[in-house]
């Protein structure tokens, strides 16, 4: 019924290889974009921006980053929190050093610096594989957090050890700092996420993305057929860290406004992003969004349900959150190792035939 190919005539390679080959799908995508860009900014209030939408966008960005590394290139990383911290601190240093510079460049700069750091910590991946590498990336996580804690230059010698985002504007409208409006920071994050998700999607379809996937599926075989593991692995680390760094910068500048490194970028954040891509689907950009949405919305929902509606203690709600997240990870891995993205694919297949189950 839906998702019919009937009437979709693909007469060129470009038509055939587009991201949304089915017309219905394409219109859905445009409709969602229109709602996100044109409707939500008018309806948004502070609660929705701070509790749901901005964190959703920021975590989606981080999840896309980790998905490039883990989902597409097969290198498990537990250093996401540390890399986000690099992005945040690089952005902060640039914001305070050059007050006239546009915040857009600051966020991009955060990404670039993180990409460099990511390549540095990615070097061992040429020798170490699998969860040996995962543990090795823990070195990045703990070392970076320690570094930002111990070297006062990074937090401009502030007494509290915190970093605070000063007010910066885009087209005269504040997007960071204390006077920021909900819709402004939402739109700022949305633009970034839109542009770079689009970029990631196209990157992973091209030659670079294919070389990553070859390395993921079997690195020795990939090497034999001519994929350079050095280039593939390090480029995956660089691109992934670039995304994660920008996510960290937005997490600090737009979402929280003030962060303390051990609290905001601890090992738990690394696991959180890893869970997002497992639940959402490894090797899928859509899955990154789905996973981020799930893990951002579920605690909010659970808190509203248990603490708000049933009136339970919030600590019990937190315990339940742990139980549900953990149980769900295990369940997901057993029932559908490819995550929500795969579920969506199955649903789409079903919708194609619905309501005629025996068509074909």
């Amino acid at each position: 019924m839906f998702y019919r190919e009937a009437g979709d005539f693909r007469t060129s390679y470009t038509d055939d290889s587009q991201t949304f080959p089915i017309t219905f799908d394409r219109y859905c995508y445009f409709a969602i974009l229109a709602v996100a860009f044109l409707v939500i900014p008018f309806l948004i209030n502070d609660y929705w921006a701070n509790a749901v939408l901005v964190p959703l966008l920021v975590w989606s960005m981080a999840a896309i980053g980790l998905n490039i590394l883990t989902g597409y290139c097969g290198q498990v990383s537990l250093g996401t929190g540390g890399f986000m911290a690099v992005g945040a601190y690089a952005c902060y240093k640039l914001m305070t050093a050059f007050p006239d510079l546009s915040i857009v460049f600051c966020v991009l700069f955060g990404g670039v610096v993180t990409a460099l750091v990511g390549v540095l910590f990615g070097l061992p991946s040429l020798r170490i594989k699998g969860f040996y590498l995962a543990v090795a990336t823990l070195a990045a996580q703990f070392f970076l957090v320690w570094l930002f804690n111990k070297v006062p230059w990074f937090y401009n010698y502030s007494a509290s050890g915190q970093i605070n985002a000063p007010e910066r504007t885009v087209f005269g409208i504040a997007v960071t700092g204390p006077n920021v409006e909900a819709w402004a920071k939402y739109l700022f994050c949305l633009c970034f996420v839109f542009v770079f998700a689009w970029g990631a999607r196209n990157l992973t379809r091209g030659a670079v993305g294919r070389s990553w996937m070859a390395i993921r599926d079997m690195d020795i075989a990939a090497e034999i057929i001519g994929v350079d593991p050095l280039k593939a692995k390090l480029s995956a680390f660089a691109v992934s860290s670039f995304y994660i760094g920008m996510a960290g910068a937005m997490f600090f500048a737009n979402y929280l406004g003030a962060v303390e490194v051990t609290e905001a970028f601890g090992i738990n954040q690394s696991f959180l992003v890893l869970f997002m891509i497992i639940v959402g689907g490894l090797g899928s950009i859509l899955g990154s969004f789905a996973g981020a949405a799930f893990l951002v919305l579920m605690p909010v929902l659970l808190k509203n349900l248990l603490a708000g509606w049933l009136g339970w203690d919030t600590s019990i709600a937190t315990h339940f959150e742990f139980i549900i997240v953990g149980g769900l990870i295990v369940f997901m891995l057993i029932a559908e190792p490819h995550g929500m993205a795969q579920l969506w694919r199955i649903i789409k297949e079903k919708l194609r035939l619905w309501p005629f189950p025996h068509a074909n």
Partner: protein
Amino acid sequence: MSQQLLYAIEVSLNGLMAGVLYALVALGFVLIYKASGVFNYAQGVMALFAALTLVGFQNGQIPFAHLINEIFGTQVHHFGWHLPAFLSVLLALAMMVLLAVIVEKLVLKHLINQEPVILFMATIGLAYFLEGFGDLMWGSAIKKIEIGLPYGPSDSIDQFTYDLFGYGFFIDRLDIVAALVAALLVCFLTVFSQYSKIGRALRAVADDHQAALSVGISLRFIWVVVWSVAGFVALVAGVMWGAKSGVQFSLSLIALKALPVLMLGGFTSIPGAIVGGLIIGVGEKLFDFLLGPLVGGATENWFAYVLALVFLVFRPQGLFGERIIERV
């Protein structure tokens, strides 16, 4: 001898003792990894859960008391008894065996033949689940373990070294007990796996799953056994760490510390876990003692990981690990 050198020796001795405790946790990892190829991230949380259960049984806490109170509006907390230490250890052990059975039934059985990384992530999920479950069951307050372990500095060592060097070493008696327990545990595990029937089956499974199956060894039974033994090791580790710093959430983080220990020692070697633990324990204490003041201290947070990282670049299989051979 110069004062500085004596300090360094004292620091290394304390590092050795801390290393023993790391090794205790790492031991649980190695056991499970050898038998089932699963890298069990939940080992640290299992230690926490075991210690929580032990304290809970001993003090006669009612499981899920908070939840029950919240739902029914009651005010129940304790059964009002106080079990002897020995009995509560046995009960906690039974709980860990039960946990092993449940994990095998609900998780491992369904994940046979999956990639190691998938299994690793499943155990991360398990760790989260167990963490929430443990807190929900026994409450998240910091608890003390009182099963008659000695505390405080050892006077005799203090006196002995004072007579010898003119400087008394400060070594916690609890650490000495922990070292003895760890040594006993390693002996026990070695004897168990060398001479008992189940131990031999265990090694057969570790060697080759299919060959073991074909001579009639039940894989699933062996997995339950291995997870139970790992639960036992977790209980010992949990009690030792719990006695040192109280039974609390941070206990589960020792799993993270055990990871570099394993990477140094090699995932498949029991002696490797011990040696790795000692190297990390001494290394991080000495490093912090010598270079910590120069760079602002608290280097213990990352030293172990960086050491393991650098080490792995040169020797990817660890000190005692089996050589990694890859084929297309």
